[in-house]
């Protein structure tokens, strides 16, 4: 953490400015240069980026240990799957509906446990994620289809004319959503809410004594995080055209946790790096079959030893859009 610059807005280095423009261009050009398999890897990178961003709100911004995030992801995916197959609601309309369903679930389930701290909260969230998965396996209310899941989900379409059904269209769909989320989250980081979250993360008691409604802000983080995970669930369900409980295991929650730890708590570029690592690494190392996870573990341990703050830790007022704009305006008020 670089706290040497007390000003909330810092000037960008030249290389940061170049990165800020080069990375989006790279993302746009990439799918035109490769075949569908690599586009699909890019798509799943996007899904993990969105999931990472959603968990980053809870774990990164507020410091709440949440190892049941796959539960929210599952709620979003199954809401889409069930409403689309049973009632024929278009998938695109179900994006906000899935977000709301996951958010509502988070509100109801997290309200009674929000006062728990650290490991205790972690244990409860593990339980929450597992309960969701087991409910899905046990064919909850006869809707979730048990271990076989729900199938025949439609493709998203805009007014029936433009249907998203190819790899490249899905790639752009997910990355547009990730892009919009990133802009929103950066705004959020710099808002009163973002500062309150960080304050709670650093010292909950101090935050409470300065008048921050700790309970409210913690719940807000869970609800927002769940909503984003719900959106990811929606896209995932329509991409695979089928959902089943295997996709929402504890392992998936761990992966999201790793994204944040690898990238750096509360850092949005870090989330992208972490998501890239999580989604690309298993594909690159797939030929090693069983040794894959061994290497993965070693890399994680080395990471923790040599860069405990993550690959790209968050710096106060770091390289992000508002600071870029303020640099352009030569203004220094945050």
């Amino acid at each position, binding site marked *: 953490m670089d706290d040497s610059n007390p000003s909330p807005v810092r000037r960008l280095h030249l290389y940061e400015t170049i990165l800020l423009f080069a990375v989006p261009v790279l993302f746009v050009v990439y799918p035109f240069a490769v*075949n*569908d*398999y690599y586009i*699909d*890897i890019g798509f*799943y990178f996007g899904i993990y980026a969105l999931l990472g961003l959603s968990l980053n709100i809870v774990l990164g911004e507020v410091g709440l240990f949440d190892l049941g995030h796959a539960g929210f992801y599952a709620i979003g995916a199954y809401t889409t799957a069930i409403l689309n197959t049973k009632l024929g609601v278009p998938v695109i309309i179900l994006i906000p509906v899935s977000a709301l369903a996951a958010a509502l679930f988070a509100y109801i389930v997290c309200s009674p446990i929000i006062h728990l701290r650290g490991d205790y909260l972690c244990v409860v969230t593990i339980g929450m994620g597992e309960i969701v998965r087991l409910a899905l396996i046990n*064919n909850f209310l006869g809707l979730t289809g*048990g*271990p*076989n*899941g729900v*199938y*025949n989900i439609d493709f998203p379409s805009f007014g029936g004319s433009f249907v998203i059904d190819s*790899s490249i269209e899905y790639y752009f769909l997910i990355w547009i959503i990730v892009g919009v989320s990133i802009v929103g989250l950066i705004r959020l980081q710099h808002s009163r809410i973002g500062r309150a979250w960080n304050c709670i993360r650093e010292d909950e008691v101090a935050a409470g004594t300065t008048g921050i409604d700790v309970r409210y802000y913690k719940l807000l983080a869970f609800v927002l995080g769940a909503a984003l995970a719900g959106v990811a669930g929606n896209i*995932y369900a329509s*991409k*695979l*055209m*089928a*959902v*089943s*409980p*295997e*996709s929402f295991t504890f392992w998936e929650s761990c992966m999201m946790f790793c994204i944040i730890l690898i990238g750096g708590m509360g850092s949005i570029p870090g989330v992208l790096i972490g998501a890239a690592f999580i989604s690309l690494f*298993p*594909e690159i190392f*797939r030929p090693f*079959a*069983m040794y*894959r*996870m061994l290497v993965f573990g070693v890399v994680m341990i080395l990471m923790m030893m040599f860069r405990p703050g993550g690959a790209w830790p968050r710096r106060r007022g770091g390289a992000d859009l508002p600071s870029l704009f303020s640099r352009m305006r030569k203004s220094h008020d945050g």
Partner: protein
Amino acid sequence: MKTLKYLFLVSLLVAVFIPASSMAAKAPVVIGLQGPITGPWAYEGEMAKQSCEIAAKLINDKGGILGGRMIELRVVDDAGEPKTGALAAQKLVGQKEVVAVVSTYGSSVCEPASNIYEKYKKVNIGYGVTAVRLTQRDFKYFFRTCGRDDSQGKFFADNVPAKFNAKKIAIMHDNTAFGKGLAEDTERALKPMVDAGKVQIVYYDAITPGEKDFRVSLTKLREAKPEVWYYTGYYAEAALLVSQAREIGVTCPFVGGNAAINNEFVKIAGLDVAKGCYMTNEPLPADLPYDKAKEFLNAYKAKYGDIPSSPWPIYAADALNIIAYTVDKTGSMDADKLAGYLRKDVDGVPGITGPIGFTDQGDREGVPFYIYVVDEKGNIVISK
């Protein structure tokens, strides 16, 4: 001099290209295998891979197909997980030389993967995917060599009443998803015979799993006077049921579903009660009577020391065999031709798991099931 130089160049070119083109004719026929090489079902994936390798080797040792072209297996890992399965499928469809794919072990992994194979027109044959709905989608390129979840009920209806010459049938289940499902499938499969007046279902009821005393239900069963009694639940209750039934004087043959009888069943019920109890079951690899099975299992045993411990890998080997057979017969790599041939012309082709043929939906025709019986020594063997 110049002409000579050109002649030399041309002859050099010819010399380079003739072997190349004749080599191209002998290029291997690449068949994909998508399976859970890692993940929770890694042992299934590993055995499927080994089985396919053995099957390919057996074909290659006999000179390959299409007049000397070898089979090459290309394995991709789907980790037993739907997302990775979709990626694995995407990877294989991107490789033009892959003719067709053996794919895969779990139904929920197969679902998204088969969507991709369908979209990119690649024949894919499932080997451990039993969900009924997979072949209800009117897919053109999807087949499976294994049975469906409801094959067992159909097998019971086709074979068991005839074997015991029984007209009155009792069906008992345990209200679990599996037991109830099998009971319902059996009832559905028996319906045409019931309507024709050939058989009668005199008892159809459920017991509560976990209970220890089933005498009330069994008394009802005894009063119905069935000539054969089918129990579709698990072995723990099955053992108690049979013991108590014999005590109160139910004498008709007991037939269990494929979860009802195993070595534990024999232990709990005791040999006296257990012997002569029947079950419907997929054939275990060791029990397959076919020549191809013997050849395959011997080769497998020679290489890996033992035969596959699960029934599924041999279906994978059969899927590979039937792909090789179809490519050989049609002389084509075109997915439409292969799918058409598999659907229409493959009928009773000898395979490891018995004659292979496909229905119009792509289901295996005549799925192999057997009636097993507990013998005098407590071993579970095929009933003659």
